[in-house]
C-alpha cells in the first residue's frame, strides 16, 4: 500500500514513516504542500496523510486542488489544532478523515487501512490467528479444518474480522449485516456471538465482550 505522508515536522515525519513501514506500508514523505501537490498528480498513491499547517500552500489547498482534478485518493488530515471550523472545513473541501495530534498509532493505522479499503475491492481472504475467511468461496477455516457457519453467523464474523482488533458496537453489527432494514434485536446479536464463540473456540482468537456495548476480536493469550 502506497501512503503519501505530508508533514513538515521532520521528527514526526521520520517516526511516522518508520511506524507505517512497520505495518507493511510503502511510505513516501514530503515536507511541503507544493511537493505534495506534485506527488499526488501521479496516480499510484493509495492514501494521503496530510498535515494542515504546511509551509507554502497548506493542507486545505492541497486537498482542494486534488479534488478539483477529480481525484478520489482518500485523504486523512492531521492537525495540531482542533478547532471545529478546521474539521468542518477539512471535510467540506473533500478530506475523508481527520485526526488530532498527538494520536495513538493504532488509531492512525486503523484509519489509514479503513481509507485504503474504501478504494480497493474487499480482500478475498480475511484472517486472524488460525482463522481464515475466504469471502469469495464463502468458506471459513481454522487451520485446515472447514467450519460450518450460518449466513448470519458468517456476516457477524466477517464484520468483526474486517475491523481487526477494534471495538464494534452491537448496533454497528446490526446496521452492517442487515442492509435491507430487517428487524434484529441486540439479543439476537448476542446469540450469534455466543454460537460463534463455540465454533471458533480453538482458532487462537477470542471474541471479547465490551459490557453493554459490543465486541472486539483479540488473539488468545
Amino acid at each position, binding site marked *: 500500500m502506497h501512503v503519501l505522508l505530508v508533514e513538515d*515536522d521532520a*521528527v*514526526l*515525519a*521520520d*517516526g*511516522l514513516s*518508520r*511506524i507505517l513501514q*512497520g505495518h507493511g506500508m510503502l511510505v513516501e514523505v514530503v515536507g511541503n504542500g507544493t511537493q505534495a501537490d506534485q506527488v499526488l498528480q501521479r496516480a499510484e498513491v493509495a492514501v494521503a496523510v496530510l498535515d494542515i499547517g504546511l509551509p507554502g500552500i497548506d493542507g486545505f489547498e492541497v486537498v482542494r486542488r486534488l479534488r478539483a482534478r477529480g481525484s478520489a485518493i482518500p485523504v486523512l488530515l492531521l492537525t*495540531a*489544532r*482542533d478547532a*471545529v471550523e478546521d474539521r468542518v472545513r477539512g471535510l467540506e473541501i473533500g478530506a475523508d478523515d481527520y485526526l*488530532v*495530534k*498527538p*494520536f*495513538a*498509532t*493504532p*488509531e492512525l493505522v486503523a484509519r489509514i487501512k479503513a481509507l485504503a479499503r474504501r478504494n480497493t475491492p474487499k480482500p478475498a481472504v480475511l484472517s486472524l490467528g488460525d482463522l481464515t475467511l475466504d469471502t469469495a468461496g464463502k468458506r471459513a477455516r481454522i487451520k485446515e479444518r472447514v467450519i460450518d457457519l450460518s449466513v448470519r453467523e458468517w456476516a457477524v464474523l466477517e464484520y468483526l474480522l474486517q475491523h481487526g482488533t*477494534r*471495538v464494534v*458496537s452491537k448496533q454497528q453489527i446490526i446496521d452492517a449485516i442487515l442492509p435491507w432494514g430487517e428487524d434484529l434485536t441486540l439479543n439476537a446479536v448476542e446469540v450469534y456471538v455466543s454460537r460463534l464463540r463455540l465454533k471458533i473456540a480453538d482458532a487462537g482468537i477470542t471474541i471479547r465482550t*465490551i*459490557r*453493554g*456495548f*459490543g465486541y*472486539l476480536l483479540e488473539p488468545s493469550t
Partner: protein
Amino acid sequence: MTSIRLRLLKWLIGPILLINLAGASLTYLLAWTPAQLAFDQGLVDAAGALAARLRPGPGALAIDLPQQAEQVLRADPVDATFFAVRSDGGALLAGDADFPALPRGAGAYDAAMRGEPVRVAALATTAGGQTVRIGVAKTLRKRQQVRSATLRALVLLETLFTLALVGLTWFSVTNGLRPLARMRSELNARDGRELAPVGGADDVPYELAPVVSAFNDLLAKVQAGARSQQEFLANVAHQLRTPLAGLELQLEWLGARHGGDPDTAHSVRLMRLSNQRMIRQVKQLLALARAEPSHFEKARLEPLDLAALVEESVQYFVDEAAKKGIDLGFQLAPALVAGDRFLLRDLIDNLVDNALRYTPEQGTVTVSCGREGADCVLAVEDSGPGIPPAKRELVFSRFVRLDDKTTGSGLGLAIVRDIALAHGARAAVEAGKQGGALFSVRFPALS
C-alpha cells in the same frame, strides 16, 4: 480608612450645630433684651411717679407720699421694691435709708442691696430750684424666673430641632449613598471569573459614572489579560503537540526495534510513560483554557447526543481499561444536550480516565448516560476506594489529589467541573452501589 458618610455627616452636622447655637443665642438676646427694657421701664415709671409727688414747699422740699401710695409702690408678690428720694446734698426725703448712693445722671444699672442683687432706675429732677435724685430698685427674682423660663424653652426647642436635623441629615446621606451600596452588593455577588462591566448604563448616577466607567475599563483590561493568558496557554499547548507526537512515534519505533534487550526496553518504556504524561497534561491545559468563560463561545453549541460522544471514545477507553484488566461496561441511552463537541469530549475523557486511574486492577468501571426527567445524566461508576463525604467537593478543585500512589495532574476533575459549569450542568460525586465512587454530570436536556 476614610468614610464618605462620616465626612459628609461631619461637614453637615457640625455647621448645622454651630448655626443652631448662633440662632439660639440670637433668639435669647431678642427675647431677653425687650423683657429687660420693659422691666427697666417699670422702674423708670415708678421713679417718674415719685418725681410727680414732689411738692416744692417754702424752704424745705416735701414729698406727698401717703402710706397707701407707698404700699402700691412696694406691692410685688415676688420681688422686694426699694426706693429713695434724696436731695442733692444726700438727705433722705423719703424711702429706704440704706439705698445705695445715687449717681448724678439718669439710667438703669445693677447694684446690690441688703445682700441681694438689684436693678436700679435712677433719675434726677429739679423741684423748687433744687436738684432731687430719685432711685427705685427691685430685686432680680422675677427677671431670673423669666430668664430661666426663656432659656428652658429655648434649650428644649433647639435640642428637638437639632435632633430632627441630625436625623434628616443621616437619612439623606444614607439615601444619597445608596447607589454605592447597590454597586457594592452587585460586585460582592460576583465570582472571581465574572468580568462583565458593572452597572446597567441607566441606573448609574451622574457623579458615580466616571468611577464606574474607569472601573469597567479596568475590568476590560483584566478580561483582555485573562483572555490573552488563555490564548497563550492554548498556543503553547498547540505548539507542543507536534513535537510530542514525533517523540512518541520515535519512542514507539525504538521500543519495537530494541524490545529484546531488557535494559533498553525498560528505559524506552519509562520514556514513553513520561511522554504520554506530557501529552496528557498538554491536552488538559488546552481543555482548561477552552473551558474558561472568556473562551467559551455559545455559538459553538450544537445539539449533541452524549451516547454518541461516548461511543466516539470507546476504543480509547477499552484500550486503557485493558492495560489494568478493568472490566469496562456501558449503559448508553440517547441523551440530547446543547454542547460544545470538543469540550464535552474532554469532559467524558477526563471522567472516564479518572475512574480508570483510581480503580484497582481487575476492577469494574461502568459508563452510563440517559434521560432522567428534564435532565440528561452522564455517570461513571467505579469499584475503586470511593471518596469520603468530606472530600467530595474538594476533588473538583485544581491540583487536588486524594492519593499519592496514582500519577495524575490533579486537573482532570477540575476540567470536568469547569466544562459542566460552562454548559449549565452540575458535576457531583456520591458513593456508588459497589462502594466506589459514582461521578455524575447532570445537563439540562434538549427537547
